[in-house]
């Protein structure tokens, strides 16, 4: 074999030639995977499209101004009003109460699991959280309605049978596992070296957790909280069962309200005729909900991207 004139077969000895006809199989797998990925994108667009059609139809009949500024929501009455605010305040209130429960507990659990817990304690608590995450939301809903509300009545006699307090509290318990596990992932992503650096200076566990790990994981924590929030905003069963279906423009957590999701359920289950204005409202509300959760998720992506590389 001459160096100056490498022949076609000069690499034969190195085993560089193709040994099996793998090109076809590789192509097939790649196409299969791409189809799966494309499917989720297509689904998203299909949802947007299906929402858009009837939403546009809705706004042909109802003014956008009334929809966005009105505080009365009575689309099925003989004198219908289409102000979205009662649904938004209800959604906001139940979500806020849920976050008030889930954020402190979820963060505390995450800090404990990642910085304090022994392997034994971890192996006990992690499966328990998974059980909590696996409970169907309808069970949570009836739990709120039939156990938590009567319990709360012991302290707050004026509380109504349907109220956002009870629904919010139970929804908070439901999203604790989401906050805890996503935040713990963020803590675990903080390099070991940072912890060692702090321990090497004589830091105690809680100082390492709160002054080094937590700030370093802040972007991940913020993203986790926003994802949990969008889960709370979109949650349906618990609020439909326990918070009521009574669109009231209020921030009183003790009276029946109707969240956006609860309203959609209510109309979908009723006998609202296809194509009527009542039917179209659920698309307008659905689109509003979609935009809100999309904005929250988008915000969490931005936060992660902006701060991701800080400790590398």
């Amino acid at each position, binding site marked *: 074999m001459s160096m100056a004139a490498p022949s076609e077969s000069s690499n034969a000895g190195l085993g560089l030639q193709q040994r099996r006809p793998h090109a076809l199989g590789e192509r097939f797998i790649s196409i299969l995977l791409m189809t799966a990925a494309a499917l989720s994108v297509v689904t998203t667009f299909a949802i947007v499209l299906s929402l858009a059609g009837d939403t546009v139809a809705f706004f042909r009949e109802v003014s956008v101004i009334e929809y966005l500024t009105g505080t009365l929501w009575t689309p099925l009455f003989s004198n219908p009003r289409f102000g979205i605010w009662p649904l938004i305040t209800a959604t906001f209130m139940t979500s806020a109460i849920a976050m008030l429960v889930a954020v402190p507990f979820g963060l505390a659990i995450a800090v404990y699991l990642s910085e304090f817990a022994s392997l034994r304690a971890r192996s006990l608590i992690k499966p328990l959280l998974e059980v909590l995450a696996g409970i169907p939301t309808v069970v949570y809903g009836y739990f709120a309605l039939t156990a938590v509300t009567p319990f709360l009545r012991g302290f707050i006699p004026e509380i109504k049978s349907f109220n956002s307090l009870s629904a919010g509290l139970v929804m908070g318990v439901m999203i604790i596992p989401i906050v805890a596990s996503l935040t713990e992932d963020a803590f675990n992503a903080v390099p070991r*070296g*940072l912890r*060692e650096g*702090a321990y*090497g*200076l*004589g*830091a105690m566990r809680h100082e390492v957790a709160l002054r080094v790990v937590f700030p370093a994981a802040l972007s991940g924590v913020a993203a986790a909280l926003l994802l949990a929030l969008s889960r709370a905003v979109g949650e349906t069963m618990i609020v439909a069962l326990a918070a009521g279906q009574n669109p009231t423009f209020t921030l009183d957590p003790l009276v029946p309200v109707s969240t956006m999701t609860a309203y959609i359920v209510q109309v979908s289950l009723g006998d609202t005729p296809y194509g009527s204005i009542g039917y179209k409202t659920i698309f307008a509300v659905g689109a509003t909900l979609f935009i809100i959760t999309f904005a929250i998720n988008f915000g969490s992506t931005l936060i992660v991207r902006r701060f991701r590389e800080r*400790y590398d």
Partner: protein
Amino acid sequence: MPVLINVTQKERETEPISEEMGVVDRANVVLETQRLSVFYGNFKAIHDVNLSFQKNKITALIGPSGCGKSTLLRALNRMNELVPSARAEGAVLYRGHNLYAPNVDPVEVRRRIGMVFQKPNPFPKSIYENIAFGLRINGWKGSKAEMDDIVERSLRRAALWDEVKDKLKQLGTSLSGGQQQRLCIARAIAVEPEVILMDEPCSALDPIATLKIEELMIELVKQYTIIIVTHNMQQAARVSDYTAMMMMRPDRSGEVIEFDTTETIFTKPKDKRTEDYVSGRFG
């Protein structure tokens, strides 16, 4: 290099049974290990290590990969305890006090015996806050001006002040690798430890940054006692006063096979394995 034997110390009960007898000046020993063994679960990582570390000297721990150099170093300030399955047997005496005694707080130990790591690990905080961190967590109470003073002094001692004095508010992580490592050294000396442990502090740095750190070590050892783990033979020869050579035993635990002045280790070692290793025949 003065080589003294302190005869009166020979009768002490706590006297190490070690290869280093007659090599170190017993009156100036800051830290010593006695039959120190470290285990990870059932695995013994280092076996019966007896070593003495001299005040204001640099002691290098050398040896092939996996021989337990880092484990030994981390046992000296009880950093090993952060690994859940780790435990130690024997003793580490710091000025005569056993650091592994039940009433000793590992947090106090690590404050007096600081550490610089293989990969520079500044906190994602400002340069200023990186230095201030150690003081703040140790309950430091003083004015802003005093803190400014300590930050400047620490950065000066770490030969970093001139490069960062105009950007103390910038993130420590925005510096170059070599600067980050000097920031970590400044952070360690800000809390005024007596001993600084360095775990391959230059292995992630380029030759010029490495040289800077080495010069810094030679400067720092006037005030501190330094123990360094290194894979770099030239580095051990250039900077250290004493060298401990470690090897893996057949049961895979590490032991010290020879300890002497660096000059002796590199010019006329007693053990054939040391000679082979420092002359680059293996490892």
